[in-house]
């Protein structure tokens, strides 16, 4: 398993999320899942919220999952997995299972920030031993790019379209990583597939703690972001380097920025390659770009202060 953290070492490992899935070319989600599973040693059971990943990875008699996997509905991956994990504890206590098993839930931002928020909060509060991984692509992509509470300020989606009167989404994102940390769980972190070593270390660290852990991983969607099919990694790196998606962890209450950009780039660098922000650069919408930049700066400042305090 993930003994040495080199690409060469990792490439020798067995894929537990295999080829044959039907995710779009260039989607970030299967990269995220692959990395998370590469960083996971030993037996693991996964749960999946309804969404792109789920509908594209297990269809009729075909499955891309080489590990036990369960999907039940949209809003309850955490609750479903909490049941699996509880049965595991019960059978272990009764001597009917002896292996040590890890548990990972995967959900998109719609299934995590919005409709699955309550069941996620409940599972975290109850202390189930699991990692909940949100692959955050910033909208309901599976149903055709609708606004979620993870959709960034200014973005054009099909339910907050950039129109003549309203220029896309006028509300800011929910800061779910911090909300999860506020449950006083042992570990919450943000990661990006562009920074694969950071991501893998975070998964390994999360597994090292008993109890509920939360990982928020940015996952570019070229369909929804209106970007090129080959720039998922480029865009996720720009998200980090513009401080739109800072890489940090809250480890038992201690905030640490795990990768600081050498040079903090303007947010426009992240937005320009994405068609969903095209209107923000149109004459008359300068105020919106300015507001987005101010917001990113303010959040970054806040995070740095929190990290200084430890």
């Amino acid at each position, binding site marked *: 398993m993930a003994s040495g953290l080199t690409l060469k070492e990792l490439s020798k490992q067995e894929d537990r999320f295999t080829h044959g899935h039907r995710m779009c070319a260039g989607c970030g989600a299967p990269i995220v899942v692959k990395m998370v599973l590469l960083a996971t040693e030993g037996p693991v059971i996964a749960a999946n919220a309804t969404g792109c990943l789920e509908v594209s990875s297990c269809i009729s008699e075909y499955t891309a999952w080489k590990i036990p996997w369960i*999907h039940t509905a949209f809003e309850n991956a955490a609750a479903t997995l909490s049941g699996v994990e509880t049965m595991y504890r019960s059978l272990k206590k009764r001597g009917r299972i002896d292996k040590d098993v890890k548990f990972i839930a995967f959900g998109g931002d719609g299934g995590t920030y919005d409709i699955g928020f309550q069941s996620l909060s409940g599972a975290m509060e109850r202390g189930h031993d699991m990692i909940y991984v949100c692959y955050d692509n910033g909208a309901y992509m599976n149903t055709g790019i609708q606004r979620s509470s993870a959709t960034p300020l200014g973005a054009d989606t099909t339910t907050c379209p950039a129109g003549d009167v309203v220029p896309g989404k006028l509300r800011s994102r929910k800061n779910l990583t911090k909300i999860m940390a506020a449950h006083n769980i042992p570990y919450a972190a943000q990661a990006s597939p562009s920074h694969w070593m950071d991501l893998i270390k975070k998964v390994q660290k999360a597994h090292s703690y008993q109890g509920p852990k939360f990982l928020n991983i940015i996952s570019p969607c070229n369909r929804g972001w209106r970007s090129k099919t080959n720039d998922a990694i480029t865009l996720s790196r720009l998200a980090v380097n513009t401080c739109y998606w800072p890489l940090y962890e809250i480890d038992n209450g201690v905030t640490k920025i795990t990768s600081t950009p050498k040079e903090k780039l303007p947010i426009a660098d992240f937005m320009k390659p994405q068609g969903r922000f095209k209107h923000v650069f149109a004459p008359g919408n300068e105020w919106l770009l300015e507001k987005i930049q101010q917001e990113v700066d303010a959040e970054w400042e806040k995070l740095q202060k929190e990290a200084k305090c430890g």
Partner: protein
Amino acid sequence: MAKVVAVTGNEAVAEALRQVNPDVCGIYPITPQTDMMQRYASFINNGKVDTEAVLVESEHSSMSACIGASAAGGRVVTATSSTGLALMWEMLHIASGDRLPIIMPVVNRALSAPLNIHGDHSDAMGARDTGWIQIWSENGQEAYDNTIQAFRIGEHMDIRLPAMVCMDGFIISHSIERMEYLEDAEVKKFVGEFKNLHPLLDLDKPKSYGPLILTDLFHEYKRAQHEVMTKVKGVVLEVAGEFEKLSGRKYGLFESYRLEDADIALVILNSAAGTSKDVVDAFRDRGIKAGLLKPRLFRPFPYEEVAAALKNTKAVCVMDRADSFGGYGPLFMEVSSALYQLRNRPALINKIYGLGGRDYLPSHAELVLNELDGIAKGGKINVFKEYIGVRE
């Protein structure tokens, strides 16, 4: 040796669950079920059982967790009422679609609005198309007995379906009755060890639960669910036969009360059947051949057997403690479908009674039986569906 006790319905069902000692239990409060699951939580925290509880944050999560636990591989229970069952609705279909034998006592209560915490059958009737087996209970004894039998029925290797055991909120859940408990060892032996089928926790043979299935195979999956339902009646009778040997208490698909030679009959579920039986007796004393049919297995509904039991009657009233607004009461629709297959059918009327815990009185049964007597003697039907016991 049976133990004679005086307990509430909730207490009796909690006791049945204690004797079964399932692997996982989903717990969430809702009146009037709360008292059952808090008793169970007390069993856990006092070491009377070694079940692992999931103390969920909603009924939706309770059923989700139960589905996860059942798919993982093991015996799973939860309990609910009313809006709690309604909140589970989406997941009820998933439990049955995934063929997971979760057992769930349902303490029947009205659905909002207006908000009402008392007993009627709107909750479970609203869940009748979810693919669950439904077993209904007149009193605490039946609720206790049905709960124990439900494990054998739902978990049967030919069935593998979730089952709900219904009893009336407050009227049964909170009333103290005399009843008999089986010995712990007898219950343990009767329900037997849980047999796994495709557990997620079989790590050497990974399974994927909950695929996307579109037009190619979905229809076949649903037909399989339909077909398994046709086998349930046989298993219910087989389990009832074994249970009778153990307890001396006889159960069937429904109870026929003085129905053999009856001219007029009531079809009525749960606690109100008890009240009605006294009135049936009073009519018999007056020389009127009255009878009663109390359904026990509502899903799957035993159409042929119900038709056979009612075929010689002249007039029947189906009493519903729930309404399908704009339609007949849900029980009426089933009995009506059953009787349609008969060449000579009794006259059939529908009364809606007791919503939101409105008392069902002997005088109500008397009024209905008198009306049926008039119809049986050649009188005409004035109204097919009518609310009774209404304040005007």
